């Protein structure tokens, strides 16, 4: 390395630390994500959100499924669970119900959460389960080599749709709202400030909160579709995004070249699953009801 060219022309304070490092398992760095993949960017936003919300990190648990985004759990210095494909949400449900003190975050990809995991997403949203779901949408199944995802835009090429996708693209934010989510937002990895703020917001919300983040997959989606690299995707997000807070989610469809509607679309406070369940049981059983003490210590 040419030291002269990289000389820093000023002093860096002794105690300066990358704010993301306390949140990472530094013994597992470098991570496996490709150059210009946006997943790492979303992790920066998430760590900023954790810092700003002053969360007790011992009580934050992160649950991922399988895929590139699914690897986030392995890198996070939190109680973290790398579960099976599509089933992060039901695992997270059990975790949260056993210990409601935990802040349970599901961090997974579009294929994992909406293809194989679609049914579980729907029901957790319907139940308003107190889970914070961050979906990194790179519009492809990246880890396995670039197959079609339900979010891959029409006419885009993938390894299982070599002549172009013809299936309609899944509108994730519309599904989230329809299924009953309390908070629904979409950003891109270009919108780092807004994304971090949304992530911070959901950490203080109760109920099923969903954030979709569009992210480049330069190695597979971008390259196969001759859309440049990750930086080109980021510039594209900047040029084509329109912030429309409160927009009807049904009007937020995504396409290969079209406008990208971002913003916070839904933010409605509703009692979450446990609140409703307990109220119902109190009502039905009166004094006979004993509040759940599901998580035992070693005395059980």
């Amino acid at each position, binding site marked *: 390395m040419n030291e002269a060219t990289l000389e820093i022309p000023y002093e860096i304070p002794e105690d300066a630390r990358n704010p993301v490092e306390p949140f990472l398992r530094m013994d597992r760095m470098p991570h496996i994500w490709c150059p210009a*993949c946006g997943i790492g960017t979303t*992790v920066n936003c998430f760590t900023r959100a954790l810092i700003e919300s002053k969360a007790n990190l011992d009580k934050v648990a992160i649950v991922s499924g399988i895929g590139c985004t699914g690897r986030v759990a392995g890198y996070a210095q939190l109680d973290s669970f790398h579960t099976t494909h599509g089933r992060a949400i039901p695992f997270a449900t059990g975790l949260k119900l056993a210990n409601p003190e935990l802040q349970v975050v599901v961090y997974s990809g579009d294929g994992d959460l909406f293809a194989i995991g679609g049914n579980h997403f729907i029901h957790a949203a319907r139940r308003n389960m107190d889970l914070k779901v961050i979906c990194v949408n790179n519009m492809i199944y990246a880890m396995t080599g670039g197959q079609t995802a339900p979010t891959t835009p029409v006419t885009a090429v993938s390894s299982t749709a070599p002549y172009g996708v013809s299936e309609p693209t899944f509108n994730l934010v519309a599904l989230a709202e329809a299924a009953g989510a309390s908070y629904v937002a979409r950003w891109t990895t270009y919108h780092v400030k807004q994304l971090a703020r949304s992530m911070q917001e959901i950490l203080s919300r109760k109920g099923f909160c969903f954030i979709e983040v569009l992210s480049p997959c330069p190695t597979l989606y971008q390259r196969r579709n001759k859309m440049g690299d990750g930086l080109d995707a980021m510039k594209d997000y900047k040029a084509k995004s329109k912030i429309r807070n409160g927009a009807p989610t049904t009007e937020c469809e995504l396409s290969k070249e079209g406008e990208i509607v971002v913003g916070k679309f839904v933010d409605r406070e509703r009692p979450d699953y446990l609140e409703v369940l307990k109220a119902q049981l109190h009502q039905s059983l009166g004094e006979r009801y004993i509040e759940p003490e599901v998580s035992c210590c070693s005395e059980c």
Partner: protein
Amino acid sequence: MAKGFVAITAERCKGCGFCVEFCPTHVLALSSAFNSKGYHPPHIVASEKCSGCDLCGMYCPDFAIFGGRYAR
């Protein structure tokens, strides 16, 4: 004296260019140097313009750069 500073861990950099592109005051540019993986890490070309906003740090997918403000 600039308001902020940027710290770069060149060995982690994979040359994606996000920090260079999205720094609001164009403090950075990709250098012609290589790190041991063969990527061109960024270098500072306008240090006096750095506000320490840490946007570079938020964008970097490889956790290879961050910004901070000098204490006053």
